[in-house]
């Protein structure tokens, strides 16, 4: 390492010490990194090990079976997968355009002085603990949804099955709204950084050709960042799928598969959070962890896809410059 030409050679003791020190620090940091990678594997292994009794008993049919009957020990995940899908996609449907709009505002429109302030306020939204958001969701947002929003939707759009049924203070729609609040800060801050990464000469070129700002956004910024934005949406999806606490607080622990957004329901994660002390039989515990295993697989797939896109995206654009 030390190739400094010096008139005196280093004392032998220091050289040995340095070699040992280098090796030691390299080994120590390497061990920590290996531990982090092993940890990920250990989590997957432990979850599947705990779920194994239920996996061998029910097989994959567990995924397509409905109902959670603790009396007769009959368990199925379909209701919960449905609930997870509806709440997550509902939240994404609202959060995606909102996040893109916020990202555009912060990168293109906001006055320079206010830019960082507003950006950090939006990011602070992500810092609110989910349990506090859930508390607010059930005691403030829930009554508003049940007494004002849902009756209004029902009156005007009741012919759509999504808005049929009687309004409730807890249910799928409240969960969708709470998840939206959790997803928006994540997705919008990624979007903002993506939009800021668009080369200025492309933007100025479009403006110089006479495009309005919106035409520049539609013609230059959005096409340029399309893959990146899809990764941002996937990151948001990962967050929405895995949120347990806030969803448990607002979704009302219902069962069955319904088209209406007003009814109560359950997701994979919220079922786990509800039953943490209620599980008695071993099979019931194993079935609960089976739910966790399904959740783990979904969230691994979503996260890996997002990371894959992010890494390819940054490669592509690094190549162009």
């Amino acid at each position: 390492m030390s190739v400094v030409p010096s008139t005196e050679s280093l004392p032998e003791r220091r050289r040995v010490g340095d070699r040992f020190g280098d090796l030691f620090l390299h080994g120590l940091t390497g061990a920590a990194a290996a531990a982090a990678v092993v940890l990920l594997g250990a989590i997957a292994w432990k979850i599947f090990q705990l779920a194994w009794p239920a996996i061998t008993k029910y097989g994959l049919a567990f995924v397509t079976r409905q109902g959670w009957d603790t009396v007769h020990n009959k368990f199925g995940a379909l209701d919960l997968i449905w609930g997870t899908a509806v709440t997550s996609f509902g939240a994404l449907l609202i959060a995606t355009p909102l996040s893109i709009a916020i990202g555009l505002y912060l990168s293109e429109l906001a006055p320079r002085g206010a830019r960082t302030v507003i950006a950090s306020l939006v990011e602070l939204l992500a810092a609110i603990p989910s349990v506090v958001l859930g508390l607010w969701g059930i005691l403030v947002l829930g009554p508003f949804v049940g007494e004002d929003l849902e009756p209004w939707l029902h009156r005007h759009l009741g012919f759509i099955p999504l808005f049929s049924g009687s309004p409730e203070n807890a249910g799928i729609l409240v969960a969708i709204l709470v998840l939206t609040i959790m997803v928006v800060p994540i997705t919008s801050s990624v979007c903002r950084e993506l939009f800021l990464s668009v080369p200025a000469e492309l933007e100025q070129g479009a403006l110089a050709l006479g495009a309005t700002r919106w035409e520049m956004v539609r013609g230059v910024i959005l096409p340029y960042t399309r893959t990146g934005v899809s990764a941002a949406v996937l990151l948001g999806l990962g967050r929405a799928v895995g949120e347990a606490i806030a969803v448990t607080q607002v979704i009302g622990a219902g069962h069955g598969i319904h088209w209406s957004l007003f009814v109560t329901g359950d997701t994979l994660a919220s079922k786990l959070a509800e039953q943490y002390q209620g599980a008695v039989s071993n099979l019931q515990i194993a079935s609960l962890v089976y739910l966790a295993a399904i959740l783990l697989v979904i969230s691994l797939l979503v996260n890996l896809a997002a990371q894959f896109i992010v890494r390819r995206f940054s490669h592509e654009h690094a190549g162009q410059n």
Partner: protein
Amino acid sequence: MAVDAGRYALTLSPRTRRRKLVNLLMQALATLAALSAVAVLAIVIVSVAQRGASALTLDFFTKTAATFGQSGGGVANALVGSIVIVALATVMSVPVGILVALYVSEFAPPSIAGVTRLALDVLNGLPSIIIGIFVYGLLVIGSGQAAWKGSFALAIIMLPLVARATQEVLALVPSTLREGALALGASRWRTVLGVVLPTSVGGILTGTVLAVARAAGETAPLLFTTSIAANAVTWDPRQPVLSIPYDIFVLSESPDPADHARAWALGLVLISFVLVTSLTARLLLVRYRKRLEG
């Protein structure tokens, strides 16, 4: 000169007018979206503050919960429990997080650094309830709950946050500093411990504070690891303890309005802590980065 008046007129053609209108509309929508996000933040904070402030008395912080049927009482046990759990989680996660970051940015060959980074990102994306169940299976089954087991679960959540924050700061340390140290004949480990790490200590600290703020609000990992606890103040990490987020979770599920009042007060305590710490850390981080980037 005969000038075609229509062509050079100052009035806009219908097409241009429509384009401008669409442009204005889109700008208004984007502004509205940003405002609505800020408004939601304000609404949540104001609702919590309004409902929680009146219950915050000295007794609230110094007494434990009232026995069944009585009113009043405080949350001292949950407060102490949260402090114990989060402090221990910080002690567990920060050294490992810093070491992982040092390996990735100072020692690892690019391919291994990439794998480690991917593992950290995936770990960061795992639902926190999964981590709770993992620790339940690893440590709780057979031997019961304890505060340190909750800390272990929180440490897994903090690890990628600390490692990521440290990595970002290490990347900002000018390579001239490293080269200078090496050129003076310092060995690799002396350069890392004597030059690189001290330069990045400010950034690592703020990153740690952000991770602490995140961990303090986590409920899901504690459900399975430290939730069944006695109603007494204990600093012993071998006992299961209550915590502020778990308390809020339980109280919010109760039908009793008195419980809701306590939940709001706890929510105010938690949200103030989280918002103040993360805001301060963010401001410090911005200042620190500016100084480092010169």
